[in-house]
């Protein structure tokens, strides 16, 4: 199949999946007890019965569920994700303000996890039974076994409370005043702990995977041949072995993207990172259906796009796939 037809087919699947995600989420969210009017009444310190009825009527919550779904899907088809029940602002604006920080966090964590994880795996694979390999294996297992919110809290206790060297006040300092480069520095300073926290669990996976993959590849005939030709060990490892060993990493990186986003949800809450995760968490508690549906829609969209990009990069990295395996 040609690349264009392949991409077109994948895009079509993506659209169908997105509609499925919307419908399923719609019913799941509405199955929860309580309604947004009660949350709004809650923050108001109470409301009259008339006001509750007005709020429900205002947001169409007094209509039958299927009618609400039909109206919602109609709006989404026109690019309108609705108004947040809580903030009374367009959902698209709320998400637009937060999608950047989430992508920044997710990408920073992904890049750190892949590069460091692969490097750790490569070093461990060179002497699979050596002490360094054992150390990396133990470290990976601990990282993998620790819940991300726990890791985050431990890092906060260590690096923001006992040794307060990192901030916990969001993405930038509230007192920030400076130029463009200072701003980037401030963001990176705030990014360090949350990105590291999110990366740890994936770091473990990548290092384990690349270690296994490298051990496998380093035993292959072509590596022996390369060594027999007298190539340096660095060239053997990084040019010949790593390129083949990295293929499963690409696959897993794509698959893990969804997990990375759900991990980001927790990390954002722990570190007060102003991304979609925190908004999602709050929206669940507030029964802010349009906001939550919008976030889930965007999350699904990001995962689908990430998987598509993974497939494409896989085709790039492995010529056998590009040429149809001839």
């Amino acid at each position, binding site marked *: 199949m040609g690349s264009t037809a392949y991409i077109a087919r994948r895009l079509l699947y993506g659209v169908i999946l997105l509609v499925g995600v919307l419908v399923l989420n719609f019913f799941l969210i509405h199955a*929860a*007890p*309580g*309604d*947004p009017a*009660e*949350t*709004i*009444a*809650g*923050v*108001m*310190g*109470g*409301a*009259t*019965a008339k*006001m*509750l009825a*007005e709020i429900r009527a*205002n947001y169409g919550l007094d209509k039958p569920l299927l009618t609400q779904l039909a109206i919602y899907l109609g709006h989404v088809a026109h690019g309108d994700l609705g108004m*947040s029940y*809580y*903030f*009374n*602002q367009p959902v698209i604006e*709320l998400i637009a*303000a937060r999608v950047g920080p989430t992508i920044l966090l997710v990408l920073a964590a992904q890049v750190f996890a892949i590069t460091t994880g692969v490097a750790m795996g490569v070093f461990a694979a060179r002497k699979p039974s050596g002490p360094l390999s054992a150390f990396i294996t133990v470290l990976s297992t601990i990282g993998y076994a620790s819940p991300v919110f726990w890791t985050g809290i431990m890092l*906060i206790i260590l690096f*923001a*409370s006992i040794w*307060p060297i990192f*901030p*916990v*006040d*969001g993405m930038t*300092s*509230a*007192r920030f005043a400076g130029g463009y480069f200072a701003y980037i520095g401030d963001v990176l300073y705030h990014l360090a702990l949350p990105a590291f926290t999110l990366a740890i669990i994936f770091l473990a996976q990548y290092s384990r995977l690349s270690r296994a993959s490298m051990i496998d590849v380093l035993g292959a005939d072509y590596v022996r041949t390369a060594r027999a030709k007298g190539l340096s060990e660095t060239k053997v490892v990084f040019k010949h072995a790593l390129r083949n060993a990295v293929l499963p990493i690409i696959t897993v990186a794509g698959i893990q993207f969804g997990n990375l986003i759900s991990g980001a949800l927790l990390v954002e*809450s*722990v*570190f*007060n990172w*102003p991304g979609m995760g*925190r*908004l999602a*968490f*709050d929206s*669940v*508690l*507030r*029964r802010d259906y349009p906001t939550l549906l919008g976030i889930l829609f965007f999350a699904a969209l990001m995962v689908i796009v990430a998987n598509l990009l993974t497939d494409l990069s896989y085709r790039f990295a492995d010529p056998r796939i590009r040429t149809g395996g001839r």
Partner: protein
Amino acid sequence: MVMVSTQVPRHLNPAVQSGIATAVPGTQIFASPLRYDADWKPHPYLAESWKVSEDGLSCTLNLVKNAKFHDGKPVTSDDVKFSIETIKAHHPFKTMFEPVSSIETPDEHTTVIRLAHPHPALLLCMSGALCPIIPKHVFGDGQDIMNHPANSNPVGSGPFKLTEFKAGEQIVLEKNPDFFIEGRPYLDKIVIRISPDLSTVVLATENGQADFLPWLAESQYITRLQKSDRLGVTDKGYAAVGPINWLAFNTAKAPLDNKAVRQAIGYAIDRNFVTKALLRGIAKAQRSPIIESSPFFNPKMPSYGLDLDKANAMLDEAGHKKGADGMRFKLTIDYIPGGGEQQQGVAQYLKSQLKKAGIDIEVRASPDFPTWAKRISNYDFDLTMDEVYNWGDPVIGVHRTYLSSNIRKGVIWSNTQQYSNPKVDELLNNAAVEKDLEKRKAFYDEFQMIVGDDLPIYWINALPYHTVYDKRLGNVPESIWGSMQSMDEVYWKEKRS
């Protein structure tokens, strides 16, 4: 000044939205006719003087002449009229301006409020976040005020102008150079950072990333921050809020429909254990529906001191003998999720404590606020922990819980106990219209004694709200409204490094 908060405002217009989250930034953006000091005394603000008529049926406000909205337009009596009418129609606290029958504006700077009957709470209702003066030329453009775009981008006449509102994240307020009180505000800028996670907010304050943390009620954090040399911690500034943590009874459901059973539960609970042990001595005990810091509190209220023998005897007498397992009957107790030690912690204590009186308690968790609110407002409960505010005058925050006319199914923080006593109704209705302070106080005294005996609610403690601040800040808000009133007097004693 960097303020941190866990409160997430929906928008910033207190005229149509109650609650701390909107009130704190809202009172910096909007000015009100009056403001109150720490001794419950009204002071001029947008109104330079005021006069309530002898018969108590009208109130004349004389406005300052130099007040302007942030867009440069003058604040006039028309804006005051529009604001009060808007609040009357849309604010959830209906009792504030319900008696207002008409508003006259004889000239640009005079507003006359006519009342259907005397309304002694009127002056308080015109202070703090209860009466923001909103511009008619912005909010009166015909759009639905509840969903008006200017609610999130407001124009007021207060000491600070809104320059950024990132919903759920950050609010930036900058000094209004044309503020009508000369030389104020002292601060150039207030940044309000919002985080739903209390520990993060506390840590940011502890590390100096934030300078001001109001509304902190968790005793473990309060005691921790009290140890800091750099930070000041005060419980002043919450007198009018009157936040009470209580145990409510579903008085329409057996066996709690029996007053003796409710009283027995009162005798089985040790209020002092809650305040001194569970809440680390930070919270003050509260034995009345009216906050003890209010001038209307009746110190003669019965306290129901711990007396397990009496509790057991009363329950025996009420016909609830202990069974073979030592238990008399089973009840559930709910609590507001996310209320921390004030709610879940106390509910867990009540489970073990009431077992001593032979009452088997099941603590029922709700995953989130809407679930809890649905259960309680639909009377699907036996006992529930709750937090309810007095909001300054009993007419605003107390009557709603005890008036039988406010038993409204599906409405949280109405009379969800379904408590009904015609004498209480009569006393509250009389107190709402009584001009004479002493007579009014007498009505409330009697009301408190009756509900103290009927016990539809067992009041436990005043929520120990505290303000944590950088000690270099001066004039930290300590009036009855605290940070829910203009902070134009707050200043830095020395320049921040």
